[in-house]
């Protein structure tokens, strides 16, 4: 790649394993010989609130935060959360979105509806939108909790990192007994 820096946004809800997923992604970029920075907010946001992680990579990265209108790839770990950050994307951005829904308090209480036709809104505004039922695929791979790695698998198809690099990073990121199911989840996402 040239001088440019590329940006990815991972978005979802506290407890979905977003930070772990973005760690794995960063290590894959590192192993691929690139500079990488990422940024996220801990603390309050972890009690079921919104969680985002910016990942930026290239030959030399300064800012760990991307600016509005500059993100090339959005990975949404919850369906509705994809809508919240569309102003961060470039016009030609790619969106990978899970069909999993987690209701926020206002929806639970019946005060606000869960937005309908999210996917069609995304498709109307962006050319490349990939839907994926991450939790279902993770279940099939053997562990519901690996939905985050399913999504990583799905993203990997849009990034210039070779499969063995991903695999070696995943192997290093989990305790031995969880490596197999996570590799399977990654593969599920990659071929979905």
């Amino acid at each position, binding site marked *: 790649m040239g001088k440019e820096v590329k940006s990815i946004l991972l978005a979802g809800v506290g407890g979905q394993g977003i930070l772990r997923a973005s760690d794995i992604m960063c290590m894959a970029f*590192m192993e691929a010989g690139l500079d*990488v920075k990422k*940024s996220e907010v*801990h603390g309050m946001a972890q009690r079921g609130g919104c969680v985002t992680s910016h990942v930026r990579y290239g030959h030399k990265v300064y800012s760990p935060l991307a600016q509005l209108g500059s993100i090339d790839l959005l990975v949404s770990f919850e369906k509705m959360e994809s809508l919240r950050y569309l102003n961060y994307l470039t016009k030609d951005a790619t969106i990978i979105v899970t069909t999993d829904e987690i209701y926020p*308090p206002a929806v639970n209480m019946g005060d606000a509806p869960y937005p309908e036709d999210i996917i069609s809104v995304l498709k109307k505004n962006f050319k490349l939108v990939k839907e994926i039922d991450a939790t279902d695929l993770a279940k099939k791979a053997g562990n519901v909790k690996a939905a985050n790695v399913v999504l990583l698998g799905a993203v990997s198809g849009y990034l210039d990192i070779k499969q063995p690099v991903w695999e070696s990073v995943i192997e290093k990121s989990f305790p031995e007994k969880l490596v197999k199911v996570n590799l399977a989840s990654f593969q599920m996402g990659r071929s979905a």
Partner: protein
Amino acid sequence: MKVLMSGNEAIARGMYEAGIRFAAAYPGTPSTEILEEFAKYDGVYAEWSPNEKVALEVAIGAALAGEKAVAVMKHVGVNVAADPLFTVSYTGINGALVIISADDPSLHSSQNEQDNRNYAKFAKIPMLEPADAQEAKEFIKLAFTISEKFDTPVFLRSTTRVSHSKSVVSLEEPIPYIDKTAITYNTTKYVMVPANARIRRVAVEKRTLALKTFANSFPENKLEINNPDVGIITAGMPYNYAKDVFPDYSYLKLGMVYPLPEKLIREFAAKVKKIYVIEELDQFLEEQIKAMGISVIGKEIFPYTNEFDPGIIQNAINNQNKATDLPVKSIPPRPPNLCPGCPHRGLFYTLNKLKLFVTGDIGCYTLSFMKPLEGLHSCICMGASIGMAHGMSKALKEKGKGKIVGVIGDSTFIHSGITPLLNMAYNKSNAVIIICDNSTTAMTGMQEHPATGYTLLGEKTKQLDLKVLVSALGIDNIRVVDPYDLKNTRAVIKEELAKDGPSVVISQRPCVLFKRAKLKAQKPLQVDPEKCTGCKVCLGLGCPPISWKKMEKKEGSKREGVSVIDENLCNGCGLCLQVCKFEAIK
């Protein structure tokens, strides 16, 4: 070796590499992981102190004994530690002392957005500010060098974006620890009575002058002369934002934000046509540079509030606004919430039903101010709930009788609730204080404290007995309730509100995320859709698994929907079962 590290991990690593083995802290986002990470290294002494003032005093003591010591806190923690801070600046240190302040521009998880660079100037203590993890690791080492060389405490300032962003860090071999500790006496230097302090006061001014000179040659105050049309003076993370959008401008990147290198700034000003000062929050650099008679552009175009990003800097300098609108406007908000099964829920549900004024405090339970619990009505700072409850009930006199409750978490009570509770007994208060004892410091991620019976290093220790402590402070009415038992919790609080004199109710049940409490997973509950009348009372608990499902209205029925429990989220705490009047939950 290169690894990916957060700023906080890198600071801990830097401490270890520099042969530092002593640190004290009180947790607080975004600083918490520094000590958690440091504690994992071999041979270190690291402690959670009960609050930041104690943490700093512990570090001062260690430094007085010849140790190189660190005190770590979030920005507001420095307020708590401010008393020793201002005077340790006078005494100087014997070993070495670094105070890490982690600021939180944008208030991601704080009650205010104070800019702690002001403390450096106010207390006349030099301050370093790294811009990423690699620098964080190096700057902590430089901070110790400066501390030893100038006999001064040194600040290392981080911000949320430095502490919690990750970047590539090169690791180095740690230098071995050298034990230089000994008892030495130097009372004119360490006994700050007026006569001695007046002398030290002069020493402080001399030291600041020496540091000003040093700043001009400090290698982390860096000139980068590129395009001479525009020069940027900046420090910390904003340097990265600016470089991202203006890589070709000239820069003066300050690694030391106090005191400023006047000669270097003048040199820079002579080399560029126009200068922008880019800094988040206060006009800290700008004011001082303008006072040197150098003309710069700063807060005329950059915001005072919130953290920056590359776009904010680009928009300000190019006088443009690139913001794009969201295609969908009404996206339901997703605020943080109490976990399913959180012991705080039952308590605040009860407080709301009793229609009281609840002075609150800081912790997970602060979240219960929101709909639908709405069980907390003020939050200022750690420990404030107790003094405020007392003040309100004194001011309201009869009008406040039986109406004022102060609520405080166990970690927060130990942090700064003990003295105000003593005051309630002493000054004959009438309010009721509730200690939400969930056996941990939950909000910041489950840290130990004196009432958990374990230390940061994982050792078992003397466990504080809250009941005994409260009694020793002079409180005669002490009750313990289980907040999972709504009926009894309500009855006990009502009884205590009816009494004369102060009462303390300890609402006791471990946090659901707590590792040591052997909490049996209860069976998830279910709503029987036949029995549910759709009254929505259970929704008033604001419990994440309970949601409302709209239905077609049937002939002759008022029912518009039913409650549903998501079995994947429910942990079976049984609160909803207690509030349902129709026995529809099993």
